């Protein structure tokens, strides 16, 4: 069998898109959690962490229920867009987003809390608008949290397998990810192929991580003294 790159690219695409969405969705949640004094905060924090607790296949099962044509979200989507999310790449993105949310929200929230209000106030006094100040001051100062969150989210999406199998249906070229391919090789006792794929995956991720950390290292956020 020639080495099949498609699942790898698909996985990388999924992980990249998921991380992008996670950062977009997780950042406001993390910001709210870091800033609010609402009593709801504690509950929301707990809810965000919950997807982690369910075994992936079980979470996948619930997502299947929710996203299916009979489910609350799936039914809505079906009537609006004509198709539900299951067995599609978009569905995988949705599922991965839910599943990896805590990995992004929590480190980012921690970083926001460490930054505190001070820099934001300084930026306001220097005429920055809220968004401007957020992106030019808070985000760069909380960079470590974004990197941690992004790395955990990315790696986890690459490695995740139970949920995506369930929601995606293992359709080659659409929802057949590298994690599923590796799993198949292991199941069918095709160990050499499994080793090769795993090594590729690990090597690729190692390089990505190495780059991320090396770049981060050149801009230490905090005073070393």
């Amino acid at each position, binding site marked *: 069998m020639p080495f099949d790159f498609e699942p790898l690219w698909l996985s990388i695409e999924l992980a990249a898109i998921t991380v992008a969405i996670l950062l977009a969705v997780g950042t406001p949640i993390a910001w709210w959690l870091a800033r609010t004094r609402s009593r709801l905060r504690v509950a929301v924090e707990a809810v965000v962490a919950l997807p982690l607790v369910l075994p992936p296949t079980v979470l996948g099962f619930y997502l299947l229920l929710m996203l299916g044509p009979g489910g609350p979200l799936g039914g809505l989507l079906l009537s609006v867009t004509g198709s539900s999310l299951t067995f599609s790449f978009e569905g995988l993105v949705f599922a991965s987003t839910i599943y990896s949310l805590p990995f992004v929200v929590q480190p980012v929230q921690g970083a926001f809390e460490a930054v505190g209000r*001070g*820099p934001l*106030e*300084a*930026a*306001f*006094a*220097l*005429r*920055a*608008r809220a968004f*401007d100040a957020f992106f*030019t*001051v808070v985000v*760069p*100062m909380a*960079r470590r949290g974004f990197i941690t969150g992004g790395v955990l989210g990315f790696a986890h999406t690459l490695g995740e397998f139970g949920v995506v199998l369930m929601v995606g249906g293992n359709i080659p070229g659409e929802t057949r990810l590298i994690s599923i391919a590796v799993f198949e090789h292991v199941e069918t006792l095709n160990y050499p192929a499994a080793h090769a794929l795993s090594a590729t995956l690990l090597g690729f991720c190692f390089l990505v991580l190495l780059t991320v950390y090396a770049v981060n290292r050149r*801009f230490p*956020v*905090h*005073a*070393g*003294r």
Partner: protein
Amino acid sequence: MPAAENPAAPRLEANLRLDRGDFRLEASLDARLSGVTAVFGPSGCGKTTLLRAIAGLEREARGRIAFDGTVWQDDRTFIPTRERRAGLVFQDARLFSHLTVRGNILYGHRRTPADERIFQPETVIRLMALEPLLGRRVSSLSGGERQRVSFARAVLATPRLLLMDEPLASLDQDRKEEILPFIERLAGELAIPTLYVSHEIDEVVRLASDLVLVSDGRVVASGPIEEVSNRFDLRSYAGRLDAGSIIRMRVAGHDEETGITRFAFAGGEVIGPRVDLPEGAAINLRVRSRDVAIALDRPGRTSILNVLPGRVVEIGPNDGPQAHVLLDVGTALWARIMRRSVNELELRPGRPVYALIKAVAVDRRSLGRPTAMDLSLEERDAAPPDGRR
């Protein structure tokens, strides 16, 4: 000229209330701000909190703030900090640790429309001696360097009101001497009114025309500095703040050889160390009350170069072993002497006396020596629309 007497100066009205655990800020202030207004009061009395509330950083503060005819805050309104354009120099610098010194300095400048900008970054950088630091990470700066960056950063955003929280606390005297005239000009000629928190009596007296006295969360007095600092009922608040007398004079002439400048005022002339001003220029001089001695006879051959004839106007109420004596020497002049001398010399209102002042004790009060600042004013009109590099 103290702001209170200047009807063109912008008016700051603040009626604020804020609770913080045991501490309550309940400040009422209605002042015309021109020049520097010092905010003075003991540690923990609420100065920082007051400044923060004025800047719009204390959302929980209730009450009303209006500045220069615009309501910044009342029951319905809350103008956010950036629109108040209140520049803040924080007590703890608060530099952006992810930016270089240059990035910090230009942060506000870049967000200031070109036509509102007053300074070129180069000017302020030169004045604050920040050139060698520009590319540095702020984490490597010393305490004083941080303060300078913080100060430059605030000024380059061209605020309408400058709120400074002990901006010079960790600067050495020479550096202060460079920066103080700059602050004076900001506030004076460029009409950026400034609220200035400081514990440094010298700084306060030198810079401020007006004074806001804060105690235990309340504004206990505000007004021209000489008035507030000499009000006997405020002694317990103003503490050791010895403003002395501020006297408006003209430069009457220089004696290059001896390095002396003669100043003319209503009551005659005074001699002091040379100032770099043309003849005829107006200047405020300060004479601290501790530096004024009183004699009944004109003294003979002494190094005391200023001997001003006049008479006793008033003797302050009992203030321990020392007495504050108000003299009229053509202008009002305060003297602080031992009460024993009051008795020995039989001083009482109306008595003719001589005021003795050493020439080295004559401080020019504003209009400091020429600095990079003078350049900046020339550049003002010639400034290109964008100061970015």
